[in-house]
């Protein structure tokens, strides 16, 4: 048994275990933390496949940034608040089961076919060559920083728009919502008291 298989086994147990734990955890913060574990486990899975870039993104963006946002949103809404359990959409559950079965079938099919499914752009052989010679991070960099130069720079403009948007909306939220305005003052009070 090679070490790859051993690592895969551990990763499999961790990812599956924490996903299931996520479904049954009662505290919203715990759910978020289990999600972090799942994300890190998936990053290991990407590493095993040799997808180094995606593994890094998985950690930096998903396990890092997105989860921080999740936690902050949970804090913002209050940890103790219970979600209402009645579902407005009728027949949601059977539909969800059906769609999940469909998705599972699709995943199994793709897993069975493997890299044979890649037909465009030179097929799976081209992908293997690419992974072997410059490695996929470098191959990606070559494309992003030469041919896709404009999309790359436009991304920074997009991020700036997002920054401005966040600033405007956050200020307006505190302008109209009495709740956040009050809790804002209570933090100031607390800091004074401290």
């Amino acid at each position, binding site marked *: 048994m090679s070490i790859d298989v051993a690592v895969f086994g551990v990763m499999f147990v961790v990812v599956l275990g924490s996903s299931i734990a996520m479904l049954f955890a009662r505290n919203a913060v715990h759910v978020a933390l289990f999600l972090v574990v799942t994300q890190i486990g998936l990053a290991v899975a990407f590493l095993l496949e040799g997808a180094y870039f995606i593994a890094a993104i998985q950690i930096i963006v998903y396990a890092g940034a997105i989860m921080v946002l999740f936690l902050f949103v949970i804090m913002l809404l209050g940890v103790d608040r219970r979600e209402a359990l009645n579902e407005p959409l009728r027949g949601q559950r059977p539909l969800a089961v059906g769609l999940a079965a469909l998705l599972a079938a699709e995943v199994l099919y793709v897993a069975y076919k493997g890299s044979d499914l890649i037909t*465009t752009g030179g097929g799976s052989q081209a992908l293997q060559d690419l992974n072997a010679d410059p490695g996929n991070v470098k191959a990606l960099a070559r494309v992003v920083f030469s041919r896709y*130069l404009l999309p790359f720079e436009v991304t920074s403009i997009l991020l700036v*728009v997002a920054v401005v948007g966040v600033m405007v909306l956050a200020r307006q939220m505190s302008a109209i919502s009495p709740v956040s305005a009050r809790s804002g003052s209570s933090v100031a009070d607390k800091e004074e008291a401290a």
Partner: protein
Amino acid sequence: MPLDIPAVRLTGIAPEIALCATALLLLVIDAVLGERRNRWYLPALASIGLGLSIYFATEAWGTTRLELSGMVAVDGFASFVKITLAVFGLLTVWLGRDFLVRERAEEGEFYGLVLFAVAGMMLMAGAADLIVVFLALETFSLALYVLVGFRRRSLLSQESSMKYFLLGSFSTAFFLLGIAFVYGAVGSTNLYGGEDGPGIVSSFMATGASDVGLLILAMGLLIVGLGFKVAAVPFHMWTPDAYQGAPSPVTGFMAAGSKIAGFAALLRLLDVTLYPLREDWRPLVIGVAVLTMVVGSVLAVVQEDVKRLLAYSSIAHAGFVFTGLIAANDRGVSGSLFYLATYGITVLGAFAVVAVLSGRDDEKVTLRDYRGLFYDRPLLAGALTLFLLSLAGVPVTSGFVAKLVVFGAAIQEGYWWLAVVGMVTSAIAAFFYLKVLVVMYMQEKETEDAERVRSGPLSTGVIGLAALATIVLGLYWGPLIDVAERATLFFAGG
């Protein structure tokens, strides 16, 4: 693929660069100088940026090539749309200035976001790769989501911003999935293709017809994503709510700008790139067009809020532009351009009047508030009358000429029945424009206002300009149609 440094030529995106640089400068200046009482320099700076972008767009007129590794098309089509968008931007900035002063809202962000939105829309017009289309779409949509929620103290505005954001992200997801499917089907996302790699259609021809189903599915998804932006039925649900909740100057900008940007991308995608497959996409687009015309016109009849009424009218107008798109001939493309430009000016004028009349907090927008308007504010009522008549397509206004051109293009291609549907729905639509006129001229005002609303000098200027353009283009349409026709000349060559 070894790395080769691409040639960087910026003729094509110079207008966008000018706008983004101005917007960044404006945000930094506003943040550094702090909240002064009169920040006149911000709209002035924004106007300079927009003026510069008009200059750069005119410079690019006459050039036709692909730039930046085939990501951007420089052609007359892009220049035409960019100049039109810059004009919309100017009108919005001036109108916004009066609104912001009245509401005492933050100014820097407003102009910054409008400039970024215009830049994103311009990029849509010149984009020659689906990735660029997607990024441009996201940039201007994100700016618009925030602008819609720009009314402080208004829960309605926040709510509509939220709705618009959620539905908008949903539609963008469709668009992204469409890009992925296109890539899956043909292995390229480029609309033209060239020395940097094959385009969508050339790859498609090379791989044979086996993946045509996948490509058509992808096409459908792309049409959903762009159809949302131009408010086509059945992707129009956000329109009335977003139009109603947004500050009136922003509503006008959304109606004018996102429509022309969305249609610019649709025209390039369907009428140029996928022109060889037109028999495959036409049934789908015809269905959307008929639904859009009928639903927009019929639902507008029952509206009591002027902004919602104009929202449904904008849906109906999207349907009329589709007839030009479906024709897919030169006349259809130039007619669509002419239609979008004149509609944008007219609708901006209409929302300028609405903005002036809506008073503090932007709240007096129901038909009841317009009773007897003519006797109270004859000039404003007159201007609104003109805009509504143009939207209805009455002769001597630009709206009439625009409808004539797009329906004519459809008839030329043998879609006379589509033109008939357009005319019948126009007649239905005329009914609700007349309803507003009846309210303004033939009903009496209920109560006297405590404070009389005053039109700022900039708003008055915008209304005047828009009214002038509506009349002049209704009488002397020739020059603009000529320019629009020449814009399509270089269009297909790439």
